[in-house]
């Protein structure tokens, strides 16, 4: 019989080792799955993990994509992780992401056709405000009426999607777009575009913001009193109140920060890689970021690595579909395995496995 025994102190080695082991196990289990699908497992794993970075033909295209995809995931996940650390569960980053994109895009388009260099920075601020405002709805409902922020923030995603649809087909539609849904192309208009800062790397302003957010969150959590209070509130709510933490203020702050970051991520996406507001410009980054946050163990550096890894599986997955004809659902199953193994191995940080011996007679 195998038993779990609680460790007196969480294991530092396993905190780092568990995600690595999870990736290895995912490769093994995924390889078995690909083998059952009639693929060469080694080949499939290589296409997913190796080719996007080092394939002589594809790497030039997919390497920048890595940053393009990882940027918004990391930016959103950093905000979410702060809340998750404090026990505040913002599940609606997707909605805040959409509202940020809408606010920012609407601001930029209102000034069309101006090409002032001040427009883009102002759009970023408008996007941040949009995400923040959308996150304040669950925050205020929670502090005033004790509603559950999980439900409210999640349901607001669907409201945001409905607003997005009305914007793309109605009030933000491109007047010169010959009746097609979607706004003007922000990325091709000087002033509203979010260009690559270094050409050919995928490094747009959103990616830089994401890196800044990683550093800021690291400093906040490790050095600042607010970061300490966030951790304390998540681990021991009663001790947090005793330490003078105001729980309501923390809810407003954490949801606010995650709303701001998600809103900015939306704006960077819509003015850069996506280019315009369309009915479905959002591709679920707000939800995937939840996975990234946990995959990174809610730690800023971990989230940075997890975001890159997640982006890699996306790009590698697409490549595998293209080159090997692996079905898209197999790629999703593969990503699901990664999360499954990670959560399953999570337990090892706090528990050790003991093989229970028979009773000594």
């Amino acid at each position, binding site marked *: 019989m195998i038993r779990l025994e609680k460790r*007196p102190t969480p294991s530092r080695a396993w905190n780092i080792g568990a995600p690595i082991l999870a990736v290895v196990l995912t490769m093994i289990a995924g390889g078995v799955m690909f083998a059952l699908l009639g693929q060469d497992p080694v080949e499939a794993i290589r296409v997913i993990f190796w080719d996007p970075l080092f394939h002589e033909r594809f790497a030039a295209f997919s390497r920048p994509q890595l940053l393009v995809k990882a940027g918004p995931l990391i930016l959103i996940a950093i905000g979410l992780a702060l809340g998750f650390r404090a026990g505040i569960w913002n599940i609606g980053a997707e909605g805040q992401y959409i509202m940020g994109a809408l606010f920012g895009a609407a601001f930029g388009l209102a000034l069309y056709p101006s090409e002032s260099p001040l427009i883009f920075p102002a759009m970023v601020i408008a996007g941040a405000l949009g995400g923040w405002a959308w996150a304040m709805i669950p925050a205020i409902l929670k502090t005033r009426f004790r509603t559950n922020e999980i439900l409210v923030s999640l349901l607001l995603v669907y409201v945001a999607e409905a607003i997005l649809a009305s914007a793309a087909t109605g009030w933000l539609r491109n007047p010169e777009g010959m009746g097609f849904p979607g706004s003007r192309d922000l990325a091709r208009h000087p002033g509203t575009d979010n260009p690559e800062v270094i050409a050919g790397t995928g490094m747009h302003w959103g990616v830089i913001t994401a890196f800044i957010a990683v550093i800021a969150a690291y400093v906040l959590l490790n050095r600042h009193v607010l970061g300490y209070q966030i951790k304390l509130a998540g681990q021991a709510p*009663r001790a947090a109140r*005793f330490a*003078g933490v*105001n729980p309501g203020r923390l809810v407003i702050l954490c949801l606010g920060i995650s709303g701001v970051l998600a809103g900015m991520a939306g704006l960077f996406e819509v003015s850069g890689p996506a280019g315009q507001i369309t009915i479905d410009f959002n591709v679920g980054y707000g939800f995937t970021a939840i996975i990234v946050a946990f995959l990174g163990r809610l730690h800023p550096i971990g989230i940075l690595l997890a975001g890159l890894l997640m982006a890699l599986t996306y790009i590698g997955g697409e490549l595998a579909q293209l080159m090997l004809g692996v079905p898209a659902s197999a790629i999703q199953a593969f990503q699901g395995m990664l999360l499954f193994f990670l959560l399953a191995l999570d337990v090892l940080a706090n528990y050790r496995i003991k093989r229970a011996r028979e009773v000594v007679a």
Partner: protein
Amino acid sequence: MTSPLFETIGLTKAYPGVVANDDVSFAIRPGEIHALLGENGAGKSTLVKTIYGLVKPDAGEMLFKGTVYAPSEPRAARAAGVAMVFQHFSLFEALSVAENIALGMENPPKPRDLAARITEVSAQYGLPLDPDRLVGDLSAGERQRVEIIRCLLQDPKLLIMDEPTSVLTPQEVEILFHTLRKLRDEGTAILYISHKLDEIRALCDEATILRLGKVVATCTPREVSAAEMAELMVGKSLSRPARDAGAPGEVLLHVGGLSVTPASPFGTPLRHIGFEVRAGEVLGIGGVAGNGQDELLAALSGETRVPPRTILLSDTPVGAMGPNKRRALGLLCAPEERLGHAAAPDMTLTENAVLTARVRQQLDRHGFVDWGSTRDYAAKIIERFDVRTPGTEVAARALSGGNLQKFVIGREVLQNPKVLVVNQPTWGVDASAAAAIRQALLDLATGGAAVIVISQDLDELLEISDRFCALNEGRLSAPRPARGLSMEEVGLMLGGAHDMHEAQPEAAE
């Protein structure tokens, strides 16, 4: 000499870094009340958990009625006839007494039959209990009766009681002892765990004393003094806390008309509480847990806000202030629950040091925690209060209860408070640590601070307080000088025993 009912032979259990039980052998005869004595960390809990099937020993064996007994889980232990009343009750407050008892049984009878059985057993053993009442409405003593009756319904041969009197008034203790003696006379063996030596001398027939996992002595409690047993337990002689009594100074804390409605339906409302504490004085507040102690501490610490003028700290109204503002002014608190309230279990001692000491010790600069000086402060607490830990970077939950309590009390005392409020400062703390904590509180008062000690341990309160008052159902009695108060007077101040009058005639049957 009858043959033993239960016997352990060479039980050994090691955890990483510590041998909890080392070759422990002892025996209990039928109809014997056997005391298990020892400091915290002496291995009592591990031993009892082994007997109850919660822990598997590494070596050694147990004999029950002469045959090998190796329960794999508590259910097997119960089936064999071993029952246990835990220190912390496992009861659902929103369910009735009968429902709670049914939940703990393997094959509960029909509710009506069960209620009849409960009434019958409770009458038989002088433990009045109404099966239909909600557990949330019961006193701590009555809740314990629920646990005891739950055990008695299984007709146990060996009953284990873990620190049963820590939550009882003196009168309730008498009722409990009466029940236990009756059980003994019927042939039930009782393993009684306690650190209250006077009780053990009054109740127990034999005693086994554990120290650092080993059996260091066995004795017949009636034949040795409490001091001798204490020395066997600790391994050195204990100094009683002492101080030079000085004249009390100015009033530092004034509480008047303090009423609080609890946030949870099972909390206790505070009703018009009023008292004063002077510089250099220790005020003891006695009472059974659940009579408003937690609520009073929360109101004093600032976790619960109250009208500003109900609490005056040196004439400054502080009632509406939060915990950190009060700390800045010199009003510090140490709550009862160490893990999760006074300290965060998974945080290191350094991180826990900043929890309350940030404001007064200036452990942050412009909102950034100065981890260097925080670590120094944690190290200072560890050194001054003799906290046994490998270092400052150890999670709080890795410390034993007594060591963490020394850390928590030390963290407040070393901040040099004007007024310190502590709730259950020595609960679950071994004798030598408890003496050190009491001495620290007395030294603080000698240094000119006002100290309020909320405790269930009446001996402790009478030992260190200048004045004593009792908290009962959210009301505070008028303080009386502690010197010269007898246990009977204290018991009456506490509102007497619950259901005393019903208990007496049945006890006489």
